C-alpha cells in the first residue's frame, strides 16, 4: 500500500482546516472506499484525517417532517432508523440492498456519496483512464464494459455511478449539506453528482476540504409508498445492473405523484425526469409505464457488452411502477 500518514480530529473546524491546508490529504470515514483506493493506487492521498469522532452522526426529524442525516451516520443505522423505514422505505431499501452487513456498519453516508466508480480500468492504476489521469483515454470504451453506463455517458467516460443510496436520495430531492472554511451551504442531490462530460475527473461541485456534514431528506407523502428495486447478478453483495428508486401515489387510476430515479445504468444517480413528466396525470397502466420507460431510455448510448441494459432498465422501471401501483391499491 502507498505510504500514508494518519491523524484523528475531533471537531469540525479542525477537520476542515487540516484537510484544506494540505492538497495531499483526505477525510477518512469508514474507510471502505478510501483504503481500497490507496491499496490499489487509484488515488494519490498521502495523509488521512480520520473524522470518525466528529459529532455529525445523528439522524434527526425536523419540525417540518424532514429527516436530517449526519454525514457520519452509518448506512445500517440510517437504513434501520424507524423514521426512515416508515416514511422513506425507498431509502431504507436502497441502503439495505447495498454492500454487505459488515460494510454497512462501517460505511458512512457522506462516504457513500463520495464513493468512487467500480470501473476496473479506473481501479487498475496502470490502465488508461480519463477519470484517474485526465487525458490518458478511456480503457472501458472498446474494453470490457458490461457494467458500464448507457445514460449520461460521454466520449471520455462511461463509468456507472455505483451508489444505491444516492439514487434514492436523488429521487427524494434530498439536499447535501457542505461545510468549508468559508461557511456552510446546501446542494440539491441531483446537482451534487456531475456528468462526466469532458471532465470525468470532477465528480462533485466541491472544493478540496469541503466536508459533508448532513443529508436532508424533505418530507414527501408519496414516499410512504416507495421502493428500491435492484437487479443484479447475485442476490447480495453486488452492485446493480439496473435499479429503480420509485415513489408513487395513484388516485382514481391516475398517477398523482411520482418520483423515479435509476441506478446501475447511468454515470450519475439518474433522476428520470422524462418518465416522471409522462407519468404525472396519466393512467396508471402498464402501457403508460412502458411508454414512460421508453422515453427515459430514448437517449441511451449502449456499448457492445451492455446493450441489454437499455431493455433491462425499462423493465425495471415498469416492474417498480407496477409493484407500487398494486401496493397502493391495497393500502
Amino acid at each position, binding site marked *: *500500500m*502507498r*505510504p500514508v500518514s494518519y491523524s484523528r480530529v475531533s471537531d469540525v473546524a479542525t477537520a476542515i482546516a487540516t484537510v484544506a491546508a494540505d492538497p495531499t490529504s483526505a477525510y477518512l470515514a469508514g474507510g471502505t472506499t478510501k483504503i481500497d483506493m490507496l491499496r490499489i*493506487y487509484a488515488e494519490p492521498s498521502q495523509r488521512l484525517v480520520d473524522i470518525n469522532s466528529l459529532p455529525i452522526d445523528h439522524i434527526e426529524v425536523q419540525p417540518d417532517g424532514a429527516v436530517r442525516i449526519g454525514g457520519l451516520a452509518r448506512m445500517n443505522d440510517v437504513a434501520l432508523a424507524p423514521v426512515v423505514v416508515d416514511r422513506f422505505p425507498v431509502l431504507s431499501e436502497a441502503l439495505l440492498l447495498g454492500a*454487505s452487513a459488515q460494510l454497512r456498519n462501517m460505511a458512512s453516508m457522506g462516504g457513500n456519496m463520495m464513493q468512487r466508480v*467500480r470501473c*476496473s480500468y479506473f481501479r487498475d*492504476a*496502470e490502465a488508461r483512464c480519463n477519470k484517474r489521469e485526465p487525458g490518458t483515454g478511456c480503457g472501458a470504451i*472498446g*474494453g*470490457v464494459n*458490461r*457494467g458500464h453506463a448507457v445514460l449520461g455517458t460521454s466520449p471520455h467516460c462511461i463509468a456507472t455511478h455505483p451508489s444505491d443510496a444516492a439514487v434514492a436520495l436523488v429521487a427524494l430531492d434530498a439536499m447535501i449539506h457542505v461545510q468549508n472554511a468559508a461557511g456552510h451551504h446546501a446542494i440539491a442531490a441531483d446537482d451534487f453528482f456531475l456528468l462526466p462530460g469532458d471532465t470525468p475527473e470532477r465528480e462533485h461541485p466541491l472544493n478540496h476540504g469541503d466536508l459533508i456534514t448532513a443529508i436532508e431528506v424533505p418530507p414527501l407523502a408519496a414516499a410512504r409508498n416507495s421502493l428500491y428495486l435492484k*437487479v443484479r*447478478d*447475485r*442476490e*447480495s*453483495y*453486488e452492485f446493480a*445492473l439496473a435499479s429503480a428508486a420509485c415513489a408513487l401515489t395513484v388516485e382514481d387510476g391516475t398517477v398523482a405523484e411520482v418520483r423515479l430515479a435509476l441506478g446501475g445504468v447511468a454515470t450519475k444517480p439518474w433522476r428520470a425526469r422524462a418518465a416522471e413528466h409522462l407519468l404525472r396525470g396519466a393512467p396508471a397502466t402498464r402501457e403508460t409505464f412502458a411508454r414512460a420507460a421508453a422515453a427515459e431510455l430514448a437517449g441511451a448510448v449502449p456499448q457492445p457488452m451492455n446493450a*441489454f441494459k437499455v*431493455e*433491462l432498465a425499462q*423493465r*425495471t422501471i*415498469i*416492474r417498480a411502477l407496477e409493484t407500487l401501483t398494486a401496493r397502493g391499491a391495497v393500502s
Partner: protein
Amino acid sequence: MTAAIGRPLDRVDGRAKVTGAGRYSAEIALPGLAHAVLVTSRVPSGRVELIDTYDAERAEGVLAVLHHLNLPKGGSVPPLLPSLFGGPASGQTFFPMQDEVIHYAGQHLAMVVAETLDQAEHAARLVRVTCRETASVTTVEQGRDRAYEAEKIFAGFIPGRVARGDVAAALDRAQVTVENTYHCAANHHNPIECSATTAVWEGDRLTLYDATQGPNATLHTVAELLNVMPSHIRVVTDHVGGSFGCKAMIWDHPALAALAARAVHRPVRLALSREQMFSSVGHREEQEQHLTLGADRDGRLTAIRHHKLSPTSHFDDWAEPSLGVASQMYACPNYEGVYRLIKANTMTPTFTRCPGEASGMFVMETAMDELAAKLDLDPLELRLRNYAENEPMSGHPWSSKGLRDCYRRGAELARWSERDPRPGVTRDGNWLLGWGMASSGYPVTPPGNPQRARARIFADGSAVVQSSFSDIGTGSATAMTQVAADGLGVPLERMRVQYGDSDLPNTAAAVGSAGAGMVSAAVHIAATALRDQLIAQAVADEHSPLHGADPAQVVVSDGRMALRDRPDTGETYAELLQRAMMADAEALGTWIPPGLDTPYGTMTFGAQFAQVAVDPELGLCRVRQLIGVFDPGRVLNRKTAHSQLMGGMLWGMSHALLEGTIMGPDGRWANASLGEYLVPVNADAPDVVIETIETVDTVVNPLGVKGVGEVGMVGTAAAIANAIWHATGRRHHRLPITVEDLL
C-alpha cells in the same frame, strides 16, 4: 464402543481455524522474516526490453529486486505430471524470470524483497518494465483458425482422439438427433486463502511452509527446479484455506520464495495477491464443445460425437478431460471424442474442481434433456433406458454402481413425478418455476505410488497416526482420526492424527477426490498393523490373560483387547505395554494402490435435481432447491462428506449462473478480483438436500471409499439449465447463464 467411521464428528482443526490460532502458510511468524512481492507482465505477448529497478531498489526497506538478469539459475523444469502420481508435479513446463520472453499476461517478471509487505508492495509499483508487445491469441474466437488435434492431453495421459464403432454411419441412421455447440467461460478457483509460501534456509537445508494439496509434490518439484536434494527439503502445511485445484500442482512461487530467501539470506514469505491468483496458478480453460447425439425412437442412444476446442499455453498440451465422464455415463455402441487445441498466450490451464466433468456433463446432460423433450420422454426415463451396466469404453464391470438408487431416491425427494412436465406453464407471481435433473459421475483414480502412514501407541494407551497428507479444508484430518481410532481400536479422544508435513510417511497429493480413499487406506493399514502386532504380543506373553489365544479371536475396543466370545478375558494396550516396560510401539502401513489397468470401471455416481424460479422480465434466475443423491462408497464422516457434496453442488450452481473469467481485448483477464468474478453469497444458496447411498466397493481401496470431493459439482449446472428450460421453454448453451441471456 461404536465405530467412529461414519459419525458426523466435528472437525478436529475447527477450533484452531475459527479462533485464528491455526497458522496458514502466509502467517508463519519467523524472526527476520522478509516479504517478496511479484511484478507481473501487463502484456500477453512480447519481450522485456528494460527492467528499471532504480527507484525500487532505493525505496524504504527494500532488500533485493530479482529478475531474469540477476536471478540465479536453478535446476530444470520437471515434466507435467499430475501430483496424484506422487512425484514432481509442475503446473506448467515453464519457469519464469529465465529470459526476456513474455508468453502471457500476468507472467512473473520480477520479485521485490523488502522488510515489510507494504514496503515490498510499494517498491513493486516502482519497478518500471518496458516491453515490446507482439500479436497475441487469448481466446477460442481468435485462435479458431489455428486449432490442431491434440495427440495427447492432460499431461500425456489421455489420447486426443477416442473412437468406438462407426459414429458417422450411426448418425446417418439415427431416428432422432440432437446437435449443438456449447460454450463455457473460463473459471478460476478462488479459494479464500491465496497461495503462499514461506521459505527458510538453514545452511543447505530448506524448509517451505506452503499452501499445497501435496507437501510431497512441493518437495519433489522444488527439488528439481532448484537442483536441491529432496532429502534436504521439508515442506510443512498446517492448514490450507481451500484449493479447488489451484494448489494441486506446484507453480513457480514456492521455488521463487526459496530463491528470494537464498538471495537475501533471510526467511522470505511470498504470498500471491488475489489479482495474481488469476494468472499464477492455472485456471479452467475457456472451451467450446460440439455434441451430437443420435438415438432411436425409443430413446436408445446409438451414437455420440463429442468434440472440444480450447486454448492451451505455448508450452503444454492441456485440456481438462471434458469428454471423459460424459463418454462413460451411457451405454452407446458408437462413440467419437476429439480434443482440439489452440496455442494461446495464457498459462497452462489446470485442474479446477471437476476438471472436465463439470463442463462435459453440462453439455451431455443438457443434450439428454433436449433429446428427452424431442422424444416426449421423461428425462429420467431416458437415462434409465441408457443405463450403462458396464463401463462403456472398456466393457469392464463397475466396481460398484448405485446410480439406479440415486435416481429413484432423488426423484422421490424432488417429487419429480408430481411436476407438470410441460415447459413454461408453472407460475408463482412474477416467477416461472421449473424442475430439471441430470446424472452425475466422477472417476475414482488411484494414486500412482504407495501410500504410507505410521501408527504409534504410547504406554498410557494414547496414540498418534502420522501421514504427510494436507487437509485442504475438506475435513480429511478429522476423517483420518476416525479411521485411525477404529483401526487400532481406541477411543477418538485418545487418537491424534499428525499430518501436513513431508517428513511424515509419504502420500501423494490430495487431488482428484482421491485423498480420502488413499490416505484412509494407509492409515487403516498402519493402525490395524499396530493392532495386530499388539495382539500378537499379548497372545505370546505368558502374563497376559490372552496368552495362547488365537489372534483371530481377539477383538479390540476402547483400547482393550479381549476374546470375541469371552469379553471378560482380556487386557488393555496400556497394561500390555507397561508390563513389558515398553514406552511405545509403532507400525508402518503401506498401501499399494491398484494399477490403472485394473479391469473395472470405477466411478462415484449421483443424480441431481434442481428447482429454479426465473423472472424472465428482469432476467433473474434464482435456484430454490438443489437435491443430490450420490453413491460415494463408504462415508468416513457424514458431516464433512455432506459439506463436500454441498460445496460441490453450490459451486455447480455458481458454474451455471455466475462464474466466468472474461478475457479483455488487451489479452488480460478483465475481472481478476472477487468483486467482479462472482461466486455465490449466502443469500444465493438455496435449500440443499443431500443423501448418500452407501455402496460396498471392494476394488477401489481397503475401506471402499470412492470419494466426495468433486462429484457434487457434476451435473448441477445441467440440472439448473434443464430447470430453466422447463420454466421458460428456452435452451441455454452457454455458461454462465446470466441476466442478458434470460431477458
